[in-house]
Every structure is written in C-alpha cells, then in structure tokens.
C-alpha cells in the first residue's frame, strides 16, 4: 500500500474510533446518571400503565445493550432522537443552527492564525526585547481570560456605550441581498473577536517558543550563512517547521473554542448550536444536549482529521510517524 493511503486509513480509523467513543460515552452517561431520561420523559407521579406505555414508546424498557445497538443504528441514519420540548427531531433543531457555529468558530480560528503568526514571528525575532516582553505578557493574560468576561466587556463598551456594533443575533431581519451579508458580518464581529482574544494567547506563546527553537537549528544557521535574507530564513525555513506543532495545538484548541462558542453565543444571543445548548439546559432537554455534543464532537473530529491529512500531504515526516 502506498504510504499516503496507509496514513489516510489510519487517520480515518482514529476519527471513527473517536466518534464511537464520544457516542458511547454520552449514551452511558444518559442511561447511568441520576438524571434518568425515564424521569424526564415520564413523570413518576403519572399513572403506572401510562408511564410504562410512554417509556415503551421511547424504547426505554428494553435491555441496555439493545437500546445501545438501536441508538447506534439511529445515529447512522442521522437520527438524534426527538426533542422533549420542541416536538421536532433533534437533527432539525440543530442542523439549522450548525452553520452559524461553523461560521463563528471557523472565522475565529482563521483570525487567530492570521494575527497569531505575525505576532509570534515578531516576538521570536525580537526575543528578550521590549516587544517580546509585551507579547509574552499579553499572551499570559490572554490565556487566563474568561470567555464571558471578554464577551460582556466588548458588548458593554463597543456595543452599548459606543454603539459601534450590534450586540445580539446573527443578522438584520430587515436587510436583503448584499445588505444582509453585511449585517451578518457586523453581527459576527463581537462574538468572533471574543473567541479570538481568548484563544490567541496560547497560540502566540507556542508559536514564539517553537519558532525560537527552529531558528536555533542547523538548517536555519545554514540558510543564514548562505546569505539569505532574514525575512526569507524566517518565513520560508523556520516558520514552515514551526507551523506543525502549532497546528496540532490548534486542533486541540478547536475543542476549547467550541466550548467558548457555547458561552459567546449565550452572551450575544447568536443562533448557533451553543445557544441551543444553553436553551436546552434551561429546559432540561436532554436529547438536544446529547445531540449537540455528538454534533460538535463530530465537527471537531472531522476538522482535526482534515488538518492532519493536509499536514500529511505537506510534511512527509507526519505520514511515516
């Protein structure tokens, strides 16, 4: 088998394993934790036969393993169950929300890289000087920020006091055509910037550290002694190799960012999956919570797999490792 095909299969296998793990964990949590779904579906002070009928309808009277197999089968058909409160399939509830979350986390991720790489380069090339200290200090503070605090601060200052940007929702209901897209962009700014501020710190710090390490390695010394310009050595030689560990970090951060999206979407009433989670929490709508987790986990796994595959294409060492 060609090495890339083997790498592809291995990576695909890991993604499937992760998804299976996520699904099984949620299934077991739902069935074994005190917040019994039977209680949520059917109140205990209901008439006994009626309760049994209702439980049977939801398939909650069967043995655990049968329920598990059935659950897996349903998931394979994209069926995440029925929402308790909205009397429509969980898939319908969440799928209309997913694009907004993807837009929010995707743009935040891209912006983190676009701002983080230059900042990391500046800090690494000026190691020990004032600029570097400044970047490092902001990095440490950025790492320690609490998502809602940042969101509320931005909302208060930029949205309410200066009235520069809209503070809630994802678009203007009265806008059409190009204006609609512009309103989407405007509504995206505050939640997206909140997420970027929170995730930028650790990205820049890692970028800086790996870049300093690369710059000290022999191939960089060689490039410098060949008389290449500093800019070429940094951007073409050192940065390329420093990108690998930071991209791995970015993959890990994606899970964190999805969590941050739940909090920012709550603050800015952004109609994504995170906001759906918040609404489901207040109504104890377990199927939606479970479905949202499976959906978000799936998104994280798929994006991680794509970045890994892209890296496998670019860097031969990843394929063989």
């Amino acid at each position: 088998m060609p090495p890339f095909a083997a790498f592809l299969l291995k990576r695909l296998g890991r993604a499937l394993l992760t998804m299976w793990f996520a699904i099984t964990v949620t299934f077991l949590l739902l069935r074994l934790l005190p917040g019994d779904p039977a209680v949520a579906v059917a109140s205990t002070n209901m008439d006994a036969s009626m309760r049994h009928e209702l439980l049977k309808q939801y398939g909650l009277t069967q043995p655990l393993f049968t329920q598990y197999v059935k659950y897996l089968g349903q998931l394979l058909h994209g069926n995440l169950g029925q929402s308790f409160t909205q009397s429509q399939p969980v898939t319908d509830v969440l799928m209309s929300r997913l694009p907004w979350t993807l837009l929010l986390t995707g743009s935040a991720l891209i912006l983190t890289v676009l701002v983080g790489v230059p900042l990391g380069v500046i800090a690494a090339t000026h190691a020990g000087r004032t600029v570097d200290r400044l970047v490092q200090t902001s990095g440490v503070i950025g790492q320690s920020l609490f998502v809602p605090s940042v969101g509320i601060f931005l909302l208060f200052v930029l949205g309410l006091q200066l009235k520069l940007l809209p503070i809630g929702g994802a678009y203007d209901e009265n806008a059409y055509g190009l204006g609609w897209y512009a309103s989407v962009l405007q509504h995206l700014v505050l939640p997206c910037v909140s997420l970027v501020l929170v995730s930028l710190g650790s990205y820049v710090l890692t970028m800086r550290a790996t870049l300093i390490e690369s710059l000290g390695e022999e191939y960089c010394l060689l490039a410098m002694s060949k008389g290449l310009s500093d800019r070429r050595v940094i951007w073409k030689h050192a940065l390329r190799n420093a990108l690998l560990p930071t991209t791995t970090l970015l993959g890990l951060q994606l899970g964190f960012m999805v969590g941050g999206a739940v909090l920012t979407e709550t603050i800015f009433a952004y109609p994504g999956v995170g906001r759906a989670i918040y609404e489901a929490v207040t109504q104890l709508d377990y199927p939606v919570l479970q479905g949202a987790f499976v959906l978000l986990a799936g998104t994280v796994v798929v994006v991680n797999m794509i970045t890994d595959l892209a890296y496998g294409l670019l860097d031969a060492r990843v394929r063989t490792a």
Partner: protein
Amino acid sequence: MTATAEITSVTAESFVEAPTAAAQTWDAFRRNPLGLIPLAILALLGVIAVFAPLIASYPGGYGADVLQAPSGQHWFGTDNLGRDILSEVVWGTRVSMLVAVCSSALAIALGVLLGVLGAYFRRIDNVIGTVVDLCLSLPVLPLTILVAALAGPSLQTIILIIAFFSWPEVARVVRSQALAVVNLPYVDAARVIGGRHTWILRKHVLPAVAPVIVVSIVLTASRAVLSEAGLAFLGLGDPNSWSWGRILYEAQQSGAMSSAWWTTLFPSLAILLLVVSATLIAIAYNDARNPKSRQR
C-alpha cells in the same frame, strides 16, 4: 598556593552546604518578583476564602439600594436585588477556591496514577494512551454541560465533573515525563537490585515527575476555576452558594450587565487575578527549577 587554598575552601563549603534541589529552586523562585507577587496574591485569596464570614456578611437578603454604583458604602456597588457585590465576590472566592482545590486534587491523583502506571507498565500504556487521546480530542465543555444538567446542580457534582474531565490532560503531561524517566539507568538499577514495583514507583519514578506535578496542580486548579465559572454562567452552578460565575450569570439573567458595569467587572477581575497568578507561578517555578534560566 593561594589558588589551592581557595579551591579547597570552595569544595569544602559546597560539600558542607550542598543545598537540595528543592532549596535551590525555592531560592531562585524567591528572587523572582513575577513568582513571589502572584504567590502572595493566591495566599491572600486563600485567606479571603477561609475567613469570608469575618470579612463580609452573606449576600442573602434583598436590599433597598438597587443597582448602586460603587461608593464608600458599597465598594463594588450593588446588584439588581440590592445585594452588596463585594460580599458576593468575597463569598464567591470561597466556592471558586474550594472547587479549584478539590477538583484539581482529584484530577491530579487520577492523572498521576494513570500517567505513571502507563509509562511504567508498557502493557497497559496503549489503553491509557488511547483513552487520554480520545478524551482530549473531544469538546469538553459541551460534555460537562450535559453531565452537569443530568446530575443536577450541586457543589459536589460540579467538583466531581470538573475533576473527571481534567485528569486526561494531567495524565498526558505526567506520562510523557515519566516515559523519559523509566528508561534511565537508575530505574533499571533499582529493578536489578530486586526492588518491588511499588517501591520503584514511589521512590524513583514519582520524585522525578514531581516538578511536572507541581505545575499541573497550579494549572489544573486555575482551569477548574474557569470551568466552574463557565458552568455557573450557564446556570448550572450550585444555586445555594455564591461563585464568581454565578454573579455573572445573575447579571446576565437580570439584564443588569447592560447598564451596570460593576456587576460584571469585579467578578471578572477576580477570575482574571486568580488565573493569571496561577499561570505566573507555574512559569516562575519552571524558570526557577531550570538551572539554565536560574543563572540569569
């Protein structure tokens, strides 16, 4: 002649007073203000947490002064029900610190145990490593929310949930450090002289990973504060006790956050202060432990 005397005196001195590694680390740490000041801040927060009842009365009853800006009477202002925000922050310190200490202790115990066992007994390493990888590649907050919603809000459940979802990170860090240690000759030597596994692990492997554990404790605790605040902000905190996250939650729920900046600023600053302090302590400790950076 004088040179020899000097050398002898130097060796004698260093022989007599050979400081332990821990003492050297502390010595370097003590001289770094970026380590000492955060340590003092954490200690102060600890004192506030322990003596909260002496510092401020419990923010329970409703007051007449609703949404007052900070003043001499209410340093941090009052919330929408007229409760003193300083009292809320003081009592919130208690819950936030309690959650941090307890959940990080549990997570560290589990993470260190599995990390060290995985590195030492290679046969179970695959299983532990895979589980850790799987846990780390999932979005933790949505999963925590699901569990917290199912289990019902109480301080105890929140501590357990946060601990349960923090140990993989600890295990990953400890395992990679322990992997480097178990292959060193002195561990082989300990095995050759017939040492039992428990003795080798306790006396030779654990001390070698101890520095990593110290850093993990600090970072896990600060992350636990953020997780607790996140859950509380979504309304999944213990409704019977004040935490910094709950102050933000109530400010958001009541709409006070859009008019009264003080309802959200002070709890936010408290969270930031604690987490930044913890991070700085971890950095200063790592610097102090490393002989290379110690020289500077």
